[in-house]
């Protein structure tokens, strides 16, 4: 990589199922103020933020170009602002590219979503489908995940008990994370007894509807020390987009994730992903995705997701010590929150969930039905 780029600070609101007391602009402001307090960064023409990259979803916000409704908190008044409507982790990729190109030195990434505003998250993801061929049959991201989960369970020997184990651990980890004040512990029996949504996905296998905001400051190497003495370096990035129609893909192949990981590992110079990371933060929107994405990342043996859970792989690999997406993040912020959580670990600021001596991490984001689009970011501290 030509010009090194670091995350200098991260900030998040708590994630709750209904932040009725806050507008999305207000959630973003809370994050911005925290970032300014941590780094002293401002929006001055010479030394301030060169570009803001916002992350938002117009349908969830129920506004066209919804970022235009919050230029003040984005620092976008008379400034340079751009929006990512793909998975939030793409804003990181975008910021990295802008800094590496020499165009910018200092970037604010700020994402928000109030999923609770809409009557149904499934109705939002339903309109991601084609009006002639896939919408009429009622597809939404949950239904697509059901199709993928069924196929993956058959291939990797994943049982209802395995999935319950994933959920129990996610909840337990989340209770140690103050960003998830509403999450409580749960027993495997309760998970197995929860109703089916789309077989084999149960209600408690699915990430809850949630509201929240997340942000970070990215800086070019030569300016990093102005803002932090604990930079988290972006060592590799990769992403890949799979086919739109579900039938055009092999839903269990992890094609896009493998490609994304391969690209990130190549850039980071990682040869053995199994030994490369002290912790892994992946966007597990549904419980089956935790072992499945770990297979795709090459950290868990392909087709061995069930055995990996039996052997306590999730704990051994320090997967989602934050609680992960299963604890509840807005869909569009998944990967960005994972990056923020990984950065906190690498800054030794993860409190009760701190992985001792964590020096390297992987963060993952996913968007689109049944994992159409994957992003992988590798991170390291000094």
């Amino acid at each position, binding site marked *: 990589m030509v010009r090194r780029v670091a995350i200098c600070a991260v900030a998040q609101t708590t994630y709750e199922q209904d932040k*009725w*007391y806050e507008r999305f602009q207000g959630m973003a402001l809370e994050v911005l103020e925290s970032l300014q307090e941590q780094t002293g960064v401002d929006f001055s023409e010479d030394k301030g933020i060169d570009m803001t990259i916002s992350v938002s979803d117009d*349908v969830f916000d*129920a506004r066209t170009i919804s970022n235009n409704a919050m230029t003040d908190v984005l620092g976008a008044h008379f400034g340079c602002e751009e929006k990512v409507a793909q998975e939030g982790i793409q804003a990181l990729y975008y910021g990295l590219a802008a800094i590496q190109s020499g165009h910018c030195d200092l970037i604010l990434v700020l994402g928000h979503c109030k999923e609770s505003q809409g009557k*149904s998250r*499934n*109705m939002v993801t*339903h309109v991601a489908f*084609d*009006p*002639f*061929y*896939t*919408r*009429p*049959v*009622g*597809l*939404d991201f*949950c*239904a697509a995940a*059901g*199709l993928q*989960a*069924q*196929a993956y369970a*058959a291939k990797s020997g994943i049982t209802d008990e395995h999935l319950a184990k994933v959920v129990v651990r996610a909840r337990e980890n989340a209770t140690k994370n103050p960003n998830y004040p509403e999450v409580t512990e749960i027993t495997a029996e309760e998970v197995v007894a929860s*109703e*089916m*949504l*789309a*077989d084999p*996905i149960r209600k408690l296998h699915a990430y809850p509807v949630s509201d929240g905001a997340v942000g970070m400051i990215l800086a070019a190497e030569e300016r990093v020390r102005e803002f932090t003495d604990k930079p988290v370096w972006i060592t590799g990035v990769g992403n890949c987009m799979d*086919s739109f*129609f*579900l*039938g*055009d893909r092999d*839903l269990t192949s992890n094609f896009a994730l493998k490609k994304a990981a391969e690209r990130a590992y190549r850039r980071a110079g990682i040869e053995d992903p199994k030994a490369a990371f002290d912790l892994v933060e992946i966007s597990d929107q549904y419980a089956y995705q935790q072992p499945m994405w770990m297979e795709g990342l090459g950290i868990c043996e392909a087709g061995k997701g069930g055995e990996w859970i039996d052997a306590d792989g999730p704990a051994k690999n320090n997967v989602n010590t934050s609680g992960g997406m299963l604890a509840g993040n807005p869909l569009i912020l998944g990967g960005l929150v994972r990056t923020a959580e990984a950065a906190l670990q690498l800054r030794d600021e993860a409190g009760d969930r701190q992985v001792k001596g964590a020096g390297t991490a992987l963060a993952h984001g996913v968007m689109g039905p049944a994992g159409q689009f994957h992003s992988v970011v590798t991170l390291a501290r000094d």
Partner: protein
Amino acid sequence: MSTAREDCFTMEGKLALPYQYFAGLTGSRFLISLRDQKKIKGLKCNKCNKIFVPPRSTCEICFEEISGNWVDLKNSGTVTGFTIIRYEEPHQPVKPPYILALIKLDGADTPLTHIVKGVPLSKMKVGMKVKAMFAKKSTSSIMDIDHFRPVEGKPKFEMGYTYDELEVGMSASFSKTISESDVYLFAGISGDFNPMHLNEEFAKMTPFGTRIAHGALPQSLIAPVLGMKLPGLGTVALEIMARFKAPTYFGDTITATGEVVEKLEKKRWVRMALTWTNQKDELVAEGSALVIPPMPLPQQAE
């Protein structure tokens, strides 16, 4: 600043925008062929030989223009994956639970996502052969195929709806024209040779002025509804009640209808409202029934 919820003003809104979508030239040909000829067509890439459906004009692998390479696909195919949708949303085409499947049509390489009906949820399997059932009314979308049904491996007896499959509001009926021979045979079956049913001269002296059928004869027409249609084979009738409202004359066509009105969760029994009407839509009788719907067959149980 107060953060009490009652001080927070909220407004109900709705994001609804009438919209016109263009299917594209290639998509239009696919949809028109589906609508007018009930033919499902695929597009073949002559370079990699892959046959795509839904249609697109370019092969995503080879970047070859394929928009002219139409091939006819069969109306049958194989299920390559499925899920059972159990949560309810307004955008769903049928009421859950229902089977959503990936179906590779014979002749195509890319499975289509569609609904499968006519198979118990617990019997659904990858590899099942299914065929397209076309919709009676076109919506110029993939729903011109209403759903898919299993082709073979039909059970010897099509069992009726189980308690879980039955929903309040489901109804079924059976119609039959009552003839003189029906009445005469029913007299033999029941031993009721009452001349009001059999002797026209006697019947002239009754308030009806002519022969009428035994009350139990039209009433019995509910049996094929309950036992063979709704719930169907395997049903046990616990109680059938009827109040007669009008006579059935020879030549009348009686329609017996049963509708599910209540599911008794505790016993897993179902209460049905019954009506009998004639060809003039006059109510002949009304009543109710209490039934035990069929249990899932042993080999169909999970």
